[in-house]
């Protein structure tokens, strides 16, 4: 899914967060969103996710403005993910249940995802009791299990161990290569921006610039 911003501006009351952003996030690419604290990176991701509709300008998804069905095709993983008070298995299966997918498909996709994560031993444990790294893996798995067209990641790998970071990076990369989906992720990690992302975009208040 291609995401195009046209003259997007956001204010919180009198405070201008960013102004007249024009950018295109290409399909099948991982775009890293970088910038100083307070530049509005998380805010921009929330606008793209449709969680905040109070802005001026236009955001187009494959040339279409945001409509209800589009919510079904995108997802967002937060820096501190909220995991449901259910088992790891149930958390990962949840988006598929919301979409009323057949039971056999739910089982197959959830088990595949759990195996990819190497979380077989934890699948029956309560997800909200897991450690930071494990929680983030479950949140990412839950976001990817229904194969969304657009994945928005708000610093999902900050504050977790190096092994988990490397594992999640590989998972994101595989997902984009395998399914040709779009990923936009906020990162403060220069190595990650260079190695994982196909492209980085700098958000700095009113200015946005990108490099390949």
């Amino acid at each position, binding site marked *: 899914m291609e995401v195009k911003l046209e003259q997007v501006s956001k204010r919180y009351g009198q405070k201008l967060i960013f102004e007249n952003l024009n950018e295109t996030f290409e399909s099948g690419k991982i775009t890293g969103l970088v910038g100083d604290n307070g530049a509005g990176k998380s805010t921009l991701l929330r606008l793209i996710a449709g969680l905040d509709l109070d802005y001026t300008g236009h955001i187009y998804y494959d040339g279409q403005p945001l409509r209800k069905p589009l919510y079904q095709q995108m997802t967002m993983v937060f820096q501190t993910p909220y995991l449901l*008070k259910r088992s790891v298995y149930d958390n990962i299966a949840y988006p598929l249940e919301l979409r009323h997918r057949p039971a056999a498909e739910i089982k197959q996709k959830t088990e595949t995802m759990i195996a990819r994560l190497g979380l077989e031993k934890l699948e029956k444990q309560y997800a909200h009791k897991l450690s930071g790294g494990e929680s983030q893996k479950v949140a990412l798995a839950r976001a990817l299990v*229904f194969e969304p067209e657009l994945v928005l990641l708000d610093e999902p790998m900050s504050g977790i161990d190096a092994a988990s970071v490397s594992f999640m990076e590989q998972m994101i990369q595989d997902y984009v290569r395998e399914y040709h989906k779009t990923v936009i992720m906020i990162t403060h990690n220069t190595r990650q921006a260079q190695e994982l992302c196909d492209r980085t975009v700098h958000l700095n208040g009113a200015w946005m610039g990108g490099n390949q």
Partner: protein
Amino acid sequence: MDYIIAGFWKALDMIFSGDPELWGIVGLSLRVSGSAIIIAALVIIPLFTFIGLRSFRGERVLSRVLNALMSMPSVVVGLLVSVTLSRRGPLGHLQLMYTPTAMIIAQVILVSPLIACLTYEMVKHRGREIQKLGQTLGASKIQSTFMVISELKSELFIYTVNGFSRAISEVGAVMMVGGNIKGDTRVITTTISMLNSMGDYAMAFALGMILIVISLVINAVLYTYKEKRADV
């Protein structure tokens, strides 16, 4: 002093001998308050979860109104229901006055603001984060509402049990709309009140003890539930 001791022993005898009148009163109390709390919870929890998940003008006003209604005196509720259900009232033709149904209606009105206020504040405080997650996973508004209820079920259960405590221990409203009719609308609190004024302490003590046991059981259930949830 002797009459108190004698009354206490007689009360124990009534409890353990299975006195039909005594246990009939206890049974009606549990049925009336249980029905009221189930009806209130089934209506109020989904409704105020739905409202709590929305941003709108007047949120603070609603919070304050619900807070104020929470402490509404039960006699005022009794008065309002009496006026509505009495023969000359707008719903007088239903002939519900002095029936257990009238008592259930009064208790639903009495406990609803309590459950509504606590649910609303909890959903505003924690539910919106859960709703946000629901939205990012593709949940509809209805699905998000039920997701929030499911995630907050421990807290909502505790509020419901608190509501039951309030319902079963109140006397004003059920006295006014039920009339304390023997074998028909007589519940624990109205009977204790009546027997106290008559100086007949045996059954009053027995009912008082049962009410305390019910209260202890409720607290034990809540305590155990909270401990279990903390372990989850």
